[in-house]
């Protein structure tokens, strides 16, 4: 219905999902996995990609089924659809990437309750055609993965002196452990969002 009224611009969807409406830095959704798994870059990317897969699939299927799902029980239906894909991802990761599975642990099944996925289902997939919805899922997934990669790079570099487990800063660097500990997650994210807001305000001023 909505798709008929206006033409969808895939480029615009991609731009919104990745940059201007980045789910982590701008919309501040999905904070739990963002804070919890970004202790190493590998974990961050693994989490990002798993969530991206779930986002694409769930957005596509919810959009296909959007005319059959009664309005009153839509949230519950969305969650069951999402949970199905998450279980599939969970089994796949456990089978093929046991190391990643053990380091992400509880946070793989918890992708179900990642607010980004439900927010996209509610805000986009329930109103748009399947293909744009899948693209929207991809865009938000990339945005999320990108954010996780940035946060985890900062945290691993400062907290462990390495990236991808490879020593970067050399043996003379004494790692600031606090950054890898839970408190560091809040701290790094706080400073990164402040940086994003600073850049945004600079850009706005320039465009004026």
């Amino acid at each position, binding site marked *: 219905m909505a798709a008929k009224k206006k033409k969808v611009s895939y480029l615009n969807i991609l731009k919104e999902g990745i940059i201007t409406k980045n789910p982590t830095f701008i919309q*501040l*959704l*999905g*904070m*739990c996995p963002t*804070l*919890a798994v970004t202790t190493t870059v590998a974990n961050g990317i693994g989490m990002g990609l798993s969530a991206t897969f779930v986002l694409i699939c769930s957005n596509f299927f919810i959009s296909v089924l959007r005319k059959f799902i009664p309005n009153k029980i839509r*949230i*519950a239906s969305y*969650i*069951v659809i999402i*949970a*199905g894909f*998450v*279980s599939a991802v*969970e*089994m796949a990761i456990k089978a093929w990437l046991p190391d990643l599975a053990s380091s992400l642990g*509880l946070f793989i*099944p*918890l992708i*179900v*309750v*990642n*607010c980004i996925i*439900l927010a996209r289902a509610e805000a986009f997939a329930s109103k748009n055609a399947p293909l744009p919805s899948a693209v929207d899922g991809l865009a938000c997934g990339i945005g999320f993965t990108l954010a996780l990669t940035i946060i985890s790079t900062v945290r691993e570099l400062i907290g462990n002196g390495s990236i991808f487990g490879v020593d970067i800063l050399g043996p003379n660097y004494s790692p600031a452990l*606090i950054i890898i*500990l*839970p*408190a*560091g*997650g*809040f*701290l790094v*994210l*706080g*400073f990164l*969002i*402040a*940086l994003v*807001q*600073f850049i945004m*305000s600079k850009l706005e001023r320039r465009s004026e």
Partner: protein
Amino acid sequence: MLNLLVISINAILIENFVLVKFLGCCPFLGVSKKSETALGMGLAVVFTMTLASAMTWLFNEFVLKPFDLEYLQTIAFIAIIATLVQIIEMFLQKSIPSLYSALGIYLPLITTNCAVLGVALLNINNGYDFISSVVYGFSAGVGFLVAILLLSAIRERIAYSDIPKPFRGFPIVLIAAAILSISFMGFQGLKLPF
């Protein structure tokens, strides 16, 4: 009994769900603007988590285990939690409308509070029995309540301070949460005398 006490102290202080385990961060950061709403949210979470722990444990023990369906845990648990939240919502709407309107959008969002699903899954992973699961669910909820109340009190104080422009809004809240988290790290040195 002592065992249960250890479980609850662990869940409330030493491994606080929000500040150490990062479960339930969204409502923690989203609903903590005012103490009153934070209190309402916290109480709703305590209630939901206790009930959800009990129901998911029973479902796992008597339905999933006998039929070897444990791989369906995630789907089954989230469906139970979603139903539970729906029932609580209808109940609040009818009997405590003031709390219902104060919680607003955040009530249905308890479904997607990862602390609730997290506690259900942790109960099973830790191999708790029924009583321990309920106690763990309740204490984890209390841990959430404590954390969100502390943060909301801090936020009410910093609301009127002169904060550098880029740090306004979420960043300063995250930094306050970081300091709160550091102080909770102190509890890790807590040696329980039994």
